């Protein structure tokens, strides 16, 4: 029995029809084998467009459907559902990608129309061989893994935990809070960062549904959506998390007291080898830095910390620990790294004393920072003139092309704080002011009125002229070159991907974008999803974001995990390989080639057998099979051969 195929060609407004003669494509399609009906329509994905397809299915009793429109990555699921709503299996539909892969990449004319016709013909030939497929469902483990405990990870974890489900929150540092814990104030409201964040950090620690792993990293991921198995490695803290009271006696007793540059204070303050980075740290427990601890690094120390500890919480014998976790979803909230401005000598960072980064300014301004919140120069005096330079490392083809998004606003915030604390002259060197968020433009206007001088032009150089720190820049509004003597320079450096983001991406099976941040499944339609079902993104690991956007995205990621938990089951991709036993010669080529160990061998029957639960549907075994005994569903040999015939036919 031959199929009855309906072909529906979309104009996509004028997106496709301005380049491709869609009416001609539909007209040609009407003449092809097994095509019962072929038509074009302005917007196939719209309600009337989908209703048109449904009415034609009913009217002509169609058994197969081809939609020539956008990429199947865009509306494949939409049209699959269109069929399902009128009782036709969604896999009996094929899309021809004539927008992203034809209209948008071609000049208008005959060649574009020919290409669209070829792609549509290929889809028609292919769909003849489609089979109805029932998607299998698997149950979802109710626990979620959240990787990274900055504001993004914290928000996601709290959101999921508040719904009553378990969360494993894994943080590589000894404390949670991420960059936000270091900030002084947050724009545009000038809320104190700690006042917003620390209550959430405490909640994380107290929530019975959240299991916090500090000093820990994910080292192994197996399984699939709903049923991941994760291995976590925890580095020794050398301090018992249960018994340590966070009193700080060990910190003051340490022989290295005030001798190690504090990472939390960005090198502006000093700490001990055993330390608690800031008073509100969560967990409020000491940690030993094994690099700077004399006993751990060199084996000789009086161990004054052990003497000082009244609860015997310090244990230098502690070893690394591995934990296996089972979770249904994974949310990555691994954050960002800051661009190192010492890479570019033109900015003078590391060369001149009073050239600092934005995050160093945060620590200077912070009341619990190294200067107790006093804005001072290295010599302790107050600055009279301060330069703030935007886009250090970002929007710069020599370093990173992307915009870091938050620096314009944090620069405006710095200017406001400097005015407030010192009354100094402030010069901001910017390329463009990007004050896009809610109340941002208003905040910018307010700071302009405070007398801050905004100079449109990227500061090109920081130099010392006769011992005077000086910023050189082109003022592109006045069209003049300017040299402005200052006491302090704040380099607002770019947010860039974490150092190990490539390894993290490959560990979880993700892709990275051109900018190095993790790639979302679809920038608009699935911004927190990834190419791996059940793995979601939150915060700056996807791209630079301010705190409001990060919190919103973190909640979105939590909602994704929760919807799978609420449903209790997820559908698996039905693309799976299977062996036709009668054609299998038992050569075992497929057994070794499978990256998942999904192909086994039945020694009695002497044929290969594929474990459907382990198979991911890559089809590599099928390509290796010399007898054609292996078929990958929805990507069968017949389907692909027909598609090849379709694109090649003239």
């Amino acid at each position, binding site marked *: 029995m031959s199929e009855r195929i309906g072909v529906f060609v979309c104009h996509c407004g004028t997106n496709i029809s301005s380049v491709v003669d869609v009416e001609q494509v539909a007209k040609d399609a009407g003449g092809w084998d097994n095509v019962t009906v072929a038509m074009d329509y302005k917007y196939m994905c719209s309600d009337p467009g989908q209703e048109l397809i449904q009415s034609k299915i009913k009217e002509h009793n169609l058994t197969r459907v081809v939609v020539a429109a956008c*990429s*199947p*990555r*865009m509306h494949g699921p939409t049209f699959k559902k269109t069929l399902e709503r009128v009782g036709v299996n969604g896999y009996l539909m094929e899309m021809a*990608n004539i*927008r*992203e*892969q*034809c*209209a*948008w*990449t*071609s*000049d208008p004319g005959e*060649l*574009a129309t*020919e*290409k669209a016709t*070829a*792609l549509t013909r*290929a889809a028609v030939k292919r769909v003849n061989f489609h089979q109805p497929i029932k998607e299998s469902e698997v149950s979802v483990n109710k626990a979620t893994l959240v990787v990274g405990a900055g504001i993004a990870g914290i928000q996601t974890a709290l959101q999921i935990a508040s719904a009553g489900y378990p969360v494993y929150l894994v943080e590589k540092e000894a404390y949670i809070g991420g960059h936000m814990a270091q900030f002084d104030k947050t724009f545009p409201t000038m809320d104190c960062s700690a006042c917003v964040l620390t209550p959430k950090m405490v909640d994380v620690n107290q929530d019975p549904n959240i299991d916090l792993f500090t000093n820990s990293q994910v080292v192994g991921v197996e399984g699939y959506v709903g049923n991941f198995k994760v291995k976590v490695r925890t580095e020794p803290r050398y301090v018992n998390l249960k018994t340590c009271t966070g009193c700080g006696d060990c910190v003051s007793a340490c022989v290295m007291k005030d001798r190690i540059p504090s990472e939390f204070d960005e090198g502006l303050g000093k700490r001990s080898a055993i330390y608690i980075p800031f008073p509100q740290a969560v967990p409020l427990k000491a940690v030993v830095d094994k690099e700077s601890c004399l006993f751990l690094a060199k084996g000789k120390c009086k161990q004054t910390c052990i003497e000082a500890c009244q609860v015997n919480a310090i244990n230098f014998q502690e070893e690394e620990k591995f934990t296996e976790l089972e979770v249904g979803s994974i949310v990555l909230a691994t954050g960002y790294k800051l661009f190192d401005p010492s890479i570019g000598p033109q900015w003078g960072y590391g060369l001149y004393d009073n050239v600092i980064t934005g995050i160093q300014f945060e620590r200077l301004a912070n009341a619990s920072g190294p200067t107790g919140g006093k804005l001072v120069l290295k010599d302790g005096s107050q600055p009279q003139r301060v330069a703030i330079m935007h886009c250090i490392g970002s929007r710069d083809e020599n370093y990173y092309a992307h915009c870091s998004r938050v620096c314009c606003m944090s620069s405006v915030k710095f200017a406001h704080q400097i005015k407030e604390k010192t009354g100094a002259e402030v010069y901001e060197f910017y390329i463009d002011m990007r004050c896009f968020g809610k109340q941002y433009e208003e905040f910018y206007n307010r700071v302009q009125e405070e007398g801050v001088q905004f100079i449109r032009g990227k500061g090109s150089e920081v130099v010392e002229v006769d011992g005077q720190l000086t910023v050189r820049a082109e003022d592109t509004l006045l069209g003049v070159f300017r040299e402005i003597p200052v006491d302090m320079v704040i380099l607002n450096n770019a947010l860039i991907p974490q150092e190990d983001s490539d390894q993290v*991406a*490959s560990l979880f*099976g993700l*892709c*990275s*974008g*051109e*900018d190095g941040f993790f*790639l979302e499944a679809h920038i608009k339609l699935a911004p927190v999803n990834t*190419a*791996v079902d059940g793995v979601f993104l939150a915060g700056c690991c996807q791209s630079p974001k301010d705190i409001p956007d990060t919190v919103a995205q973190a909640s979105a990621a939590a909602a994704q995990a929760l919807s799978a938990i609420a449903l209790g089951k997820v559908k698996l991709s039905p*693309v799976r390989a299977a062996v036709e036993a009668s054609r299998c010669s038992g050569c075992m080529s497929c057994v070794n*080639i499978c*990256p*998942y160990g999904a192909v086994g061998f039945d020694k009695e029957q002497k044929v290969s057998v594929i474990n459907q639960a382990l198979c*991911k*549907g*890559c*089809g*590599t075994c*099928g*390509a*290796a099979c010399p007898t054609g005994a292996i078929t*990958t569903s929805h*990507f069968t*040999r017949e389907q*692909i*051969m027909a*598609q*090849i*015939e379709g*694109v*090649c*036919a*003239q």
Partner: protein
Amino acid sequence: MSKKKDFEPLIVGFLCNWCSYTGADLAGTARIKYPTSIKIVRVMCTGMVDPSYVVKAFKEGADGVLISGCHPGECHYVEGNVKTMRREPLLANLLEQLGIERERFKLMWASASEGEKFAKAVQEMTDILKPMGPLNLGGGKKIG
């Protein structure tokens, strides 16, 4: 002469769903123009491209075949692309024995963010194939 000038090669592209097909979509979203010569067949992984698919494309009249997948180490299926990488020299050899020039068959890697790289590769391959003219096997008759 004029006929040869008008010759538009036909390239069949086998692109993996996760990297290169997504990258080709990105080329579209970014409105990067490239020749219409390429007609893309989506596969889940380049590892699923049976060598016979490539032979079939040439048999059906393709002037070139391009396989594009994730970069080695970035395969959605761990290492399907590595399997393809190993098959490629063998297949290229076989094709040459059939009289199909080496330039007509290409394997490349393009990630989901490399739309421009993909578009450039199509342009380059088209530029190479154009002066070569149509694939001519067995005195103009189709093989197989």
